[in-house]
């Protein structure tokens, strides 16, 4: 027991060393950290400004967003994009107009900063949900074995056969009313919670398989058998002997669930059942950007910046995830996933 405790820090040290030598993972991690800190620092401002339309009150220079108001004839409105909305335009002074504004004159910088946080929060919540559900389910199946194992894993197999979209949509529908009531009618936050619960509750299946496989292989290790011979129960064995050994591989796999959850949130936003307006998320902004660009109006910045940021975030998250997996879990889960 003390042996395992003595070797585990050094094992994680070598893991950290392996992670540090991985250039992709380090770059990704640095980028993620920088973006998270930047949008975290900007949070008070972005929360205050993300939904301010036209910004007429805050601007000293006369804003020229008139040409997108509904009163203007359509052909003139679509023909020339008002320069005030373009990146570095002058609807608002300073940082707020660096990346331009959307059709309503809302600052894209603030919307992106808040959207990044919303996306990260939803992805993190979904991953946590998947982590808890999957670990409990897989550990129960692996520890108890026999009939229970068969039954639990059969359930996972059947759920695999169901298309995940169906589960997300129905989960969202089923959860909306009770959760909104539980949160006292604060629909905006209830919506986010429902979103990550729905995404998380479809992402735990692979996690359950990974954890079950790990537990099964740990069950036949000498130190577990010794503990069992001394009369330890399954709960004790799991907490004392298995959990420390599970942390690495499970963390590595979980870090790969985060970008998947983010992509799913984007897809749900495209369907119109993701984050509800006016709240932005990276997926929501990208989906809106797709709508905003067509042969007639070229709000190109509404597509390029959100999509670019989303893609960079996903690249970084994937890089960190792969790096973690290689560092913490060189062999075991890759075999199970293949």
């Amino acid at each position, binding site marked *: 027991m003390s042996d395992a405790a003595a070797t585990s820090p050094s094992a994680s040290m070598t893991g950290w060393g392996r992670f540090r030598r991985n250039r992709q993972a380090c770059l990704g991690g640095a980028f993620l950290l920088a973006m998270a800190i930047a949008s975290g620092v900007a949070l008070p401002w972005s929360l205050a400004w993300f939904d301010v339309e036209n910004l007429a009150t805050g601007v000293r220079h006369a804003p020229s967003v008139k040409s997108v108001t509904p009163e203007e004839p359509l052909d003139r409105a679509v023909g020339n994009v008002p320069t005030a909305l373009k990146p570095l335009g002058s609807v608002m002074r300073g940082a707020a107009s660096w990346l331009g504004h959307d059709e309503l004159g809302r600052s894209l910088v603030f919307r992106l900063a808040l959207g990044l946080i919303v996306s990260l929060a939803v992805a993190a919540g979904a991953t946590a949900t998947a982590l808890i559900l999957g670990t409990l389910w897989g550990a129960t199946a692996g520890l108890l074995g026999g009939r229970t194992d068969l039954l639990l894993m059969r359930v996972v197999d*059947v759920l695999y*056969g*169901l298309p995940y979209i169906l589960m997300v949509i129905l989960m969202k529908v089923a959860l909306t009313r009770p959760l909104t009531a539980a949160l006292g009618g604060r629909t905006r936050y209830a919506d986010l919670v429902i979103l990550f619960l729905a995404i998380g509750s479809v992402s735990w299946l692979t996690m359950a398989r990974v954890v079950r496989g790990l537990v099964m292989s740990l069950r036949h290790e000498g130190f577990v058998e010794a503990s069992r011979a001394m009369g330890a129960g399954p709960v004790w064995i799991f907490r004392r002997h298995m959990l420390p050994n599970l942390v690495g591989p499970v963390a590595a796999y979980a870090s790969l669930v985060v970008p998947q959850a983010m992509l799913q949130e984007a897809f749900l936003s*495209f369907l119109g059942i993701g984050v509800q307006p006016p709240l932005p998320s990276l997926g929501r902004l990208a989906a809106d950007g797709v709508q905003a660009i067509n042969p007639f109006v070229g709000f190109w910045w509404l*597509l390029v910046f959100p999509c670019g940021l989303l893609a960079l975030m996903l*690249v970084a998250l994937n890089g960190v995830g792969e790096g973690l997996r290689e560092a913490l879990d060189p062999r075991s889960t890759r075999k199970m996933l293949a």
Partner: protein
Amino acid sequence: MMRMIARRLVLGAATLACVYALTFLMVVSAPGNPLQTSERNLAPEVAAALRARYDMDHNGRYFVQLLLGILRLDFGPTFQYPDWTCNQILAQSLPVSAMLGLVAILLAVVVGVPLGAMSAVRGRGWASGLGLSLALAGVCVPTFVTGSCLLLVFAVFLRVAPVGGWGTLAHLPLPAVTLALPFVAYVTRLTRAGMTEALSQDYIRTALAKGLPRRQVVWKHAFPVAFLPVLTYLGPATAQAMTGSFVVEKVFSVPGMGQHFVNAALNRDPGLLIATVLVFSAMVIAFNLIVDGVHVCVDPRLRSRAA
């Protein structure tokens, strides 16, 4: 071999039954139903008549009625499109999605496998770089973005492809490429990983040591082993691609099955939802069976066990 197939078919039927029961349970217990949507605005007596007609007030009876219909391959009516039956909708949209999906999967194999294999064999180089960036792009850019960008560039600016629709061969490339991209990414990654692992095996070193040409070692000794995980992945992937993608269908206005699936779930339309889910599950089971059959043919270890 025959016994294995028979066993898998029985297991598949049991899975389908579970899927049916689960989907039914979920769609019936979710709040809201297709008769409540604001678009239809049914008179109360009409709604009552419809409820009675389809036994919607007696879920148990509805469950049995629908099941009996499905056993005769009749998926019953759909509430969203009053003049259509589920069978008619499937008959119209499934071939479209199946064709598009098949082309996309073929594309994924034709592009992804050589790219992945080359990037593993050559190490650093243009093939490796291209493979890696393609694999990253496929995972990191949402389909609706790639689809819209392709549409904008090729249909609007270059005018070499129709903006949307379905029917002629010219309608095929853009949606097929969009649909294929995530699959290309995954196939490339799997092939690369499999090839890297296979090339590090002892028997490869032996083959090289006894003087076989490198090309022969790579393609004859390493590649068949490296391809096995790709084959496993292709089973469910083909089923998924062939049952349609909502995003691709929406961006390119392709009349496929993915949109019915999402709309049925959003509108809680039990008949159409169960029909589409069952088609999807049946395809997954069927393609897994086919893939396992191919596995037995390709992998000598499995062949001896099956005989």
